[in-house]
Structure formats: C-alpha cells, structure tokens
C-alpha cells in the first residue's frame, strides 16, 4: 500500500464535502427536520437531469442552478402538501421526494444513451476519481471537486457566521422570530436552498448516501456532547473531518487485512461517522448510555451503603450493646438488593466504615458517626412529616427513608427548626 497525492486529494475532498454538509446539518437536526436533508438530496435529481438536458453539459453552474431550483421547490411542496392535506411532515416528505427522485431517474435513463450521468454514481459517488479531474489555479493543479466543495464550505461558513443570530432565533422560536421581523419562512427556504446547493456540490464526489450521513450524523453526535450551539457546530465539523480521514484510511487498509482489495471510500466514511456516533452515544459523559448507567449505579451503591449503616445502627440501638456484629447473610436478607449489598459492603470495608469480625460486620467509630448522621436525618424527617405535615402512618417512614439519602447538614438544621428541635421521633426513638 503506497500513499500517493491521489490519496491526499481524496481525503481533502472528503473533508471539505463532509464539513460543508455537517455545518448545515446542525440546523436540520435542531429544527427536528433531519430527514429534510434526505428528501432534498434525493429530490434534486430531476433538477440535475433537466439542467443537463437544457445545457447539454455537466458544468457545475447549470447543475447548481437546477439543484437549488428543485431543492427549494421540494421544500415548498413539502410545506404546501403538509398544510393543505393535513398529512404530517414525514408523510408529505415521503410523497414528494420519492416522486421527484423517480422522475429524475427516468430523465437520466432517457438521457443516458448519450451521457455518462449514471444512477449508480448518484448513490455512491466517485471520490476515488475526483483527483483526476483538475483545475489549474495559480500554477497548482487542484481537483475540481475539492474546489467546488471548498467554495461551498466557505459559503456555508459565511452564512452561519453572518446569520448566526437569525438562524438561532428562527430555529428555536420561529413564531417570535417572525413577530420581530426575522421571517422564519424566508430563513427556512434560504437554508433549504443552501442544503440543496451543498448536496449537489458534495454529491458528485461522495454520492447521496454519504451526503445524508454527513448532514445528520456529525450534528447528532455533537448534540450528545454539548449544550452550547457554538460548541455543537465546532464539534460537528471535527467529527465530519475525522470521519473523512478515518473513512479513507479504513477503505484502503481494512479490506486488505482480510484479503480483499480496497473498498469504496465514500461508503467507509459513512461507516466511520456511524462508528463515531456510536462511540459518543455509549461514552458521552452526560448524555451517553454508559455515563448514565454509571451515575445510576453510583447512586444505587450509595443508597445500599446508607441502608447497611442504618441497619447496623438500629441493631446496636435495639441490642443495647456497643458495636454488635451482624452476619452478612442477615444484611442480604434484610436489604433484598442482591449483589449490590456485596459491592456496598466492600466499599464500606474499603473506606473503614465497618470492619469484619468472626461473628460478622461491626461499625467502626467513623462508621458509627455516619450512621448516626443518617438516622438523625431519617428521624428528623419523620418528626417533621408527622408533626408539621400530618403524615404519621407508614408512608412517612417510606418518605423519610428516601429523603434521608439526600439530606445534608443545612437541611437537618432547617428540619430541626421547623420541627421545634425534637429529641424523640414519632416512634419515641431518640434522635441522635
């Protein structure tokens, strides 16, 4: 495997097209119209075909005009059909884009006798061939696809920078935006026109599947990682660029490991961005699945620790002895939380809240004071709930049992004051 200038240009083209799609994709994802990218990227096909039939060439400009025209028409039709028929947006999208796409296919087939515009190319693109079709710019040979996608990226960046505020308000609250004179409808169609233009620029090199992936997946990934719009835009661009690099590297290396020749770069880029999304989905600190599971687990562990301490304290109180031992089996039977008891017990042993003796587990000094603190919270809550709020039945015990885990000293003070500094709880047990 040898690295050539072709590989470099493939990656550059991939990065530029992925980034220009990803940037606009943020606004599609935030406006909850991700599939609009899908619809427009398919629906522009007849625009391309008509542009070709009219102009007789595959020049970028007529193609762009055709695509933007049909792209905006698609957005208008989807809106109109949805409004007039009462169908939801998904259904009207499905009707419009499949019809237009089919129309495009027919037109291309009609023209295909004498042109090299073929449907397969529309789906997968031909990024591997783009470095061969070059412009000469200031003495440099630059692939045409890199130039078109670069210009498109620049246009999109300028659009997002200059209209940052307008895009934000029309995306978040279109009604308010419109009352203020920032016409949300106009912004919508401008955005759709740019999506169509971007789609068409990226289309030729990377194909429609990658266009759809890049419109949605980097933005969706970024949305999982941040709560700030600027950060979301930046992260989506990084994800897009990264997946272009990983995609090409993957395309030329992974198949050779299992004895095949290299595979489609565009396809591999789409896979790469999907893998990046999956990784973030699993591992993102706040919104990720694993992050949430860990947080949940830590909470369960803490509740179990507290419950063990509480039980040891109550046993000591009932027996009247100093630090009586309790068998691990009894703890398990009382708490009924299975393996969590073992984990919580291990944690308590580690932090020296309890120690193990021959007869069972025993509270240490620091364990005793934490346990007393917990019981204080519990009994203060019971006193407050019964004395002040009038809940004196078993429910008060359950509420206190839940609240004791989240009660700090400041809260204890407030409870004491509210319950008139009680010394005994409603069951006539001492409040430590």
């Amino acid at each position, binding site marked *: 495997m040898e690295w050539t200038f072709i590989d470099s240009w493939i990656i550059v083209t991939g990065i530029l097209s992925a980034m220009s799609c990803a940037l606009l994709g943020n606004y599609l994802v935030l406006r909850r119209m991700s599939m609009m990218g899908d619809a427009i990227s398919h629906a522009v096909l007849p625009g391309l075909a008509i542009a070709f039939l009219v102009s007789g060439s595959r020049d970028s400009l007529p193609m762009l005009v055709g695509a933007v025209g049909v792209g905006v028409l698609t957005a208008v039709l989807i809106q109109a059909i949805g409004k007039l028929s009462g169908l939801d947006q998904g259904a009207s999208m499905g009707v419009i884009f499949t019809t237009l796409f089919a129309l495009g296919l027919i037109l291309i087939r009609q023209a295909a006798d004498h042109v090299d515009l073929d449907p397969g190319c529309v789906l997968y693109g031909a990024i591997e061939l783009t470095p061969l079709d070059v412009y000469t710019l200031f003495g440099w040979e630059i692939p045409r696809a890199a130039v078109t996608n670069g210009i498109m990226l620049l246009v999109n960046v300028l659009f997002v920078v200059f209209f940052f505020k307008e895009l934000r308000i029309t995306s978040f609250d279109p*009604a308010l935006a419109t*009352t*203020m004179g920032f016409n949300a409808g106009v912004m919508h169609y401008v955005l759709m026109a740019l999506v169509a233009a971007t789609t068409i620029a990226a289309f030729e090199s990377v194909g429609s599947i990658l266009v759809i992936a890049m419109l949605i997946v980097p933005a969706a990934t970024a949305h999982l990682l941040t709560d700030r719009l600027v950060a979301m835009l930046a992260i989506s661009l990084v994800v897009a660029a990264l997946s272009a690099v990983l995609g090409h590297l993957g395309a030329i290396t992974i198949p050779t490991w299992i004895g095949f020749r290299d595979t489609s770069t565009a396809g591999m880029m789409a896979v790469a961005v999907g893998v990046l999304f999956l990784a973030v989905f699993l591992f993102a600190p706040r919104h990720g699945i694993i992050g949430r599971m860990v947080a949940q687990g830590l909470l369960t562990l803490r509740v179990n620790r507290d419950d063990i301490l509480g039980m040891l304290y109550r046993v000591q109180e009932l027996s009247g002895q100093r630090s009586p031992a309790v068998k691990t089996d009894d703890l398990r039977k009382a708490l009924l939380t299975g393996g969590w008891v073992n984990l919580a017990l291990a944690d308590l042993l580690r932090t020296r809240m309890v120690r193990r003796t021959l007869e069972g587990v025993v509270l240490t000094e620091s364990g005793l004071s934490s346990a007393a603190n917990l019981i204080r919270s519990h009994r203060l809550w019971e006193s407050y709930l019964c004395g002040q709020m009038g809940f004196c039945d078993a429910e008060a015990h359950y509420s206190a049992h839940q609240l004791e885990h989240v009660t700090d000293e400041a809260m204890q003070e407030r409870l004491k004051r509210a319950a008139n500094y009680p010394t005994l709880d409603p069951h006539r047990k001492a409040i430590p």
Partner: protein
Amino acid sequence: MSNLSEFENIADAGQETAPIWINDLTVAYHRKPVLWDVNLVLPEGKLVAVIGPNGAGKSTLIKAILGLVPKATGDIRIYGRSYEAQRRLVGYVPQRESVDWDFPVSATDVVAMGLYGKIGWLKPVSRRHREQAVEELRKVGMEAYADRQISQLSGGQQQRVFLARALAQDAQVYFMDEPFAGVDVATEKAIVALLKELKTAGKTCVVVHHDLQTVTTYFDHVVLLNMRVVAAGPVEEVFTEENLKKTYGGKLTLLSQALHKYAQQPGIGTGGAKGGHR
C-alpha cells in the same frame, strides 16, 4: 340599525389611539372558521385576560394580531397602524410547549433573543446585550440560572425565562399565551408581580388565561371569547355568570352550529374559502 352605527362610532373612536383595535376579524383554518367577526378595542395600560373554552380561538386571536396566521377578513391596528409598522412596540410570550427546550442555548441566550429586534439583521449579540439579558433575568429572580442550558430548568423557571425575554423586548403592548399554564406557586406569584409592574409602567398586557378563579384578582379587563367576542370590558362589568354561561355553556351554541353547517356546504366562498385561496 342605529345600534350598529353607534357601535361603529365607538370602534372608530379607538382606531387611532387604542393599543389594539380590531374590526371584523375572521380567521379560518381550511374551511372551518376559528374566529368569526371579531370586533375589539382594548384600552391602554390595562391587564386584559382572554378567556374561553378550548378551541375558542384564544391563541388564534393573538396569532392573528401578530400576523402569524393569515386573516380571511378584517383590519387590525396597533396604536393606529398596521402590525408590521409597529413591531417594535409589541412583545410576545408564546406557549411554553411551542419551542424545543432541548435546544442548545442558555437562559441568557434565550433572553437575549428579546433584543434581536433592536439589534437588527446581521449585527452580532454583544457583551452589553448579554449583560442586559442577565439584568432581565434578575427581574424575574432567575439570575442564578443565567448560564444553565434551558432543558435543566423546571417548567416554571422556563416560563420565567420567557417573561424575561419579553421584558427585554421593552414593548408597549404584550401578548402572552397561557403564561400561567403548569407553573409552580412561586412562578405564578412572580408573573403576577411582573404584570402589576408592567401595568404601573403604562404597558398593556393581553393574557390568554385558563383559571376563571383568578380572573378578578389578577386582571382589570376581560375578553370572553368563543369564536366570536361574547363580551369584553372591565372585569366588574362583564365577568358575570350570564356571560360565562354564554361563553362556556354548551359546546355547540346556535351560532357555531350554523357555522358548522355553513362550512360543510360545498362551494360557498366566505372566510374559509378565501383563507384557503390566499
């Protein structure tokens, strides 16, 4: 006939000066009229409740005034001129459910949106604007949450962010769509205090309201709406049991039955059809 011309005189009287003057407004979705022949003049510096059963067209009335839904017929003036000419005098608080609270913006960002109209096209939000936004958050007791992402706020807090945004708009007339819906006691108090303050400052507030119990304590003026204006005026005069019965009593009043039949007739070109052919 003499009654009618008298009414028209009254209506004309407010045309140039009233914060809100509406003549013969009809709004239709598809063929079905939602608002029918609404005439309304609202006085300046009052807290006005708009009440009526579900589907009475309360939100639609506000949206029609703000140009968010097309009107089939009618004329609407804000201080004597069209809405488009008076945008800067108007503040709007949409229903809380109308936006996506997972949107990646902070409370300050949302409040700063109230200033966008003043900032104008293409100009960025400056530090001064953000400081003003935090100042508005302080007025609704939310400055501690200025940097929070909005999904991390409770429903009541979100509503207060919306109110702070309306304050940032620094308007003369405010339209609020159910600001009291699903909020906690603290927020309800905050909203009431804010409404009083706005009134003291001479602003007019038109509030879509659901809780009939609180109409007399919170508001000075009331509009009873059920597709048409059943009654409008000072609370003590028009908030009567008889008017309430007329507004809420029986889902299908004679008028709405007639309208319903009317809408079902094919090929009749009134409000509904006009709205559709816009």
